[in-house]
């Protein structure tokens, strides 16, 4: 049944028990992203030393796909080098925009592969990307503000 291919068990696990959902104080940068077509919104706090992601924490309301997605990405990137994280995000993005042709590299995107089915539902792609794009945005903003990026 196709609904199960969208709603993988892993997604529900993250939705029921989201990781890093509670904003940690004093972030390097805070971003707020909205899915303008449905109103779902997340706030995401990023702690970074400019090279590494020290902490990602978040809060918000949304559907299972957007909530689970944010949980997955936050868990995946904490403790990693920024360049590596941007690569991971790019890989996830490629999968989610592939319309089903890219099933994702688990070594790279971890639980992110559970979202492979979402790529067949274009209207949900934005939900799946919400937390990922917020993370990317936060990283790029942090980079800019501390003069690391050009």
């Amino acid at each position, binding site marked *: 049944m*196709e*609904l199960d291919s969208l*709603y993988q068990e892993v997604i529900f696990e993250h939705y029921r028990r989201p990781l890093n959902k509670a904003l940690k104080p004093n972030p390097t940068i805070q971003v707020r992203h909205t899915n303008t*077509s*449905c109103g779902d*919104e997340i706030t995401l706090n990023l702690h970074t030393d400019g090279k590494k992601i020290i902490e990602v924490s978040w809060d918000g*309301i*949304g559907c*299972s796909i957007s909530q689970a997605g944010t949980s997955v990405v936050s868990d995946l990137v904490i403790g990693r080098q920024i360049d590596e994280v941007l690569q991971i995000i790019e890989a996830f993005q490629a999968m989610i925009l592939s319309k089903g042709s890219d099933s994702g590299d688990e070594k790279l995107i971890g639980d992110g592969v559970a979202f492979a089915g979402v790529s067949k539902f274009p209207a*949900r792609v934005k939900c799946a990307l919400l937390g990922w794009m917020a993370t990317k945005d936060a990283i790029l903003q942090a980079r800019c503000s501390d003069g690391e990026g050009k």
Partner: protein
Amino acid sequence: MRNTPRRKRYLVSRLNLSAIKAEFPILRREIRGKNRLIYLDSGATSQKPNSVMAAERDFYENHNAAVHRGAYQLAEEATELYEGARAKVAGFINADIDEVIFTKSATESINTIAYSLGSAKAGTRFHIRAGDRIVVSEMEHHANLIPWQELASRTGAELVWFKVSEEGRLDTSNIDELINERTKVVALTHQSNVLGTIVPLDQITAKAHSVGALFVLDACQSVPHYKVDAKALMVDFIAFSGHKMLGPTGVGILWGKKDLLDEMPPFLTGGSMIETVTMEGATYLDAPKRFEAGVPNMAQAIGLGAAVEYLNALGLDDIHAHEVELTKRALEGLQSITGLSIIGPKDLEMRGGVVSFAVQGIHPHDLGQALDQYGIAVRTGHHCAWPLMRRFKTIATTRASFYLYNDFDDIEALIDGVERARKYFQSR
């Protein structure tokens, strides 16, 4: 799909549903495999009967030419068809022909009024200035809210609004405070696209006129479903969209009182709306041409004319009665589902065929996704009424909206589908 006898208890519709369904080819679509399409999103846009598609095609195949400009036979025919469509729409809302303006959408219709008023020179009766007031409500669609916010911000006028009660009704308790001598415009929806609430207008139009304010009615959700009489309503302008009333996309209507339209500054300027033009300036024709610059959306207007004929043939009263019955069953059936709550009136009093609801623990997006899997198309999200969502302390609802091609089976499918989705998500 469950097949209980309970639907038999409901009124047999005066509409011949099987004949109607046959006229809408899209209803034969299969969704996500072999599911019959159960289309419950007519509040967003309606499906189209064969006669509408045929009217557009006939125009292109036999009569296509620029109206009002050419003097050759095709152009004459095109003009007659286009103006004939205007006459049909005028008849449909009991308006004079010259009061009906073809726009691209209700959104454009409302913007037309807002921009035209915004262009009125100081000293004229339409001029809006700092200190003036524009009144809307908390249940407006963004299309009847943001143009007024922008007009207010351009002119320095103040935007104020009616609140919405817990039951989803317009709260008019502070009407005398809201509509006062400074009020220049009152812009309200006729029926909420989220709650289904029909707004009683008499008291508000009377009050608006008593202070000399213009009354703008957003009739997107009413004109397609029940009789709207432009003359009886005591409003000054009415906006609605063709695509929500069986018509093609790309055509909307602005109705306005002729004496107002003829006096107001034009909005879009260009060809076919001018009286004379020099390099230095131009003078403009009266309505409707004044507000129809450029080669118009001819095929779409003509398609809308065919839609109006289709609606007339069925009869708006029967259509409305049918939709009330569908709504009655939907309200009853949905409320029997554990954890489900209706957002909007729970009774049928002054209420159209739009039902918004929430199911505890299930985000509307997820619910809508499951329903889609069963072939049921509903709308989820803020429905372009974000402030109303905030009013009800939510960010989104699931909305089912009905039209003349929906039958009781569709409603049962919705009720069953929501129950099934609830169990699916609960079990995970």
